[in-house]
């Protein structure tokens, strides 16, 4: 943007949900279905503990379906935010289920069975409402991610679809975390498309400002300025239904409209991100 000074009032406008995932996870909507793409434990743990802490603070009931190893990360951060998980369990405001125990209960021939899973999910939600004590429920789980990481893409997508249906039917906000590299071209073959089709919002990166910067720069370096017919194509483009930062949407536009540039853009964006992470903060 230009060098001109804006009026003070614009600068004082509230911080945007488009600059950070925090506001989105704090207020996911009554049946929002949000997904985070992560690669490091800090972003992963911080996002889940933030989602949980904000739900608890709002008087909601929170269901977490975690592997044992990941619960260590999450519970430690919850304690760091001043919450006592044991006390929350006793109050019935926090429900913890083991992802590895849950999955076999509804998997049949390597695919989730909706006839088993959906009633099980509904019972869990009903119990979390504690007879009306907690009318609002939010749910984070990693069973879908467990299947994805195992290479069971079809099973993972099927389970996500079931979750999405239950979220709408039961009016529950759902948050998922996927171990997915946003700059890996392979995820855009199938997995990322599945993610977009089953989620209302996509959180592609921890640092939105950095993601914006590196994607913009990678596109400029690899493709050049977007003008003329390319600009018209960009302006006319309608992305998939799920909401995501414009920097992530731009990558999808490049894939669709300039497929031969897509991989070089991702490669360059990764290099730029690595450079910026290696550089000490000012």
């Amino acid at each position, binding site marked *: 943007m230009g060098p001109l000074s804006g009026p003070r009032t614009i600068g004082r406008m509230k911080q945007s949900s*488009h600059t950070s995932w925090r506001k989105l996870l704090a207020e996911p909507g009554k049946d929002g279905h949000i997904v985070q793409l992560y690669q490091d434990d800090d972003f992963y743990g911080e996002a889940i503990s933030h989602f949980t802490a904000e739900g608890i603070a709002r008087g909601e009931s929170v269901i977490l379906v975690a592997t044992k190893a990941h619960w260590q990360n999450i519970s430690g951060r919850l304690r760091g935010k001043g919450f006592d998980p044991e006390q929350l369990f006793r109050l019935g405001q926090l429900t913890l289920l083991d992802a590895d125990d849950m999955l076999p209960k509804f998997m049949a021939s390597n695919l989730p069975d909706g006839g088993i899973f959906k009633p099980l999910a509904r019972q869990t939600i009903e119990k979390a409402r504690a007879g009306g004590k907690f009318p609002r429920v939010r749910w984070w789980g990693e069973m879908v991610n467990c299947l994805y990481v195992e290479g069971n893409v079809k099973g993972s997508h099927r389970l996500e679809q079931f979750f999405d249906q239950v979220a709408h039917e039961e009016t529950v906000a759902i948050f998922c975390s996927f171990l997915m590299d946003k700059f890996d071209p392979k995820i855009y073959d199938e997995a990322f498309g599945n993610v977009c089709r089953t989620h209302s919002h996509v959180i592609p990166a921890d640092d939105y400002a950095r993601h914006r910067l590196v994607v913009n720069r990678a596109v*400029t370096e690899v493709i050049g300025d977007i003008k003329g017919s390319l600009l018209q194509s960009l*302006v006319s483009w309608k992305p998939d239904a799920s909401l995501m930062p414009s920097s992530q949407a731009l990558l999808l536009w490049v894939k669709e409209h300039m497929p031969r540039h897509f991989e070089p853009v991702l490669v360059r964006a990764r290099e730029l991100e690595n450079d910026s992470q290696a550089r000490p903060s000012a």
Partner: protein
Amino acid sequence: MSGPMHLTDCGLPGIKAIPYGIHMCHFFRGQDDLAAALVPYFAAGLRSNERCIWITAPPLHAGDAAAALEQAGLDALALERKGALLIRDYTDWYAKVDSDAADILGRWLHEEERAIADGYSGLRITGNTSFVQSGDWSAFMDYEELLNREQSSRRIVTLCSYALGQCSAVDVLDVVRRHAGTLDRPDAGWQFLTSC
């Protein structure tokens, strides 16, 4: 005003009727480009008995805007005296609002109510956003999102101007996603590139 009560004349050659409530944007390359969009836009608004408010910023200041309207045969001074037209530089307009996006929106909605109470058919607005600094961009996009949502049921038409040279590809997507329609002039005529 002729035609259905919920429609009005856009004024840009190639675009016919637009609905009240529409929040549009366009990307301009320079002063001439900007005037070529906004002069016919306001001429149509004045013909349609709408109160017109033009918030200017570089490269087209308030004096330039008035001169551009005069060149098109409109008596900007007389229209301002009558109250049908208000041309203000962004520093004069936004500096009077001492709060956040909701307050700025509230001021637009109040202007619409006042215009209708004064016998106008509606309110026609344009704002050139070239003054917005990069650090304020996200907050400004929130304001655009709010305006897009809240004006849709009002007798307001808005055309926001963005300096193309100041926008990255990601900025362009940010803007397009927060407006109900994006106007462009690829040749002699204008057209909607997107409309939601």
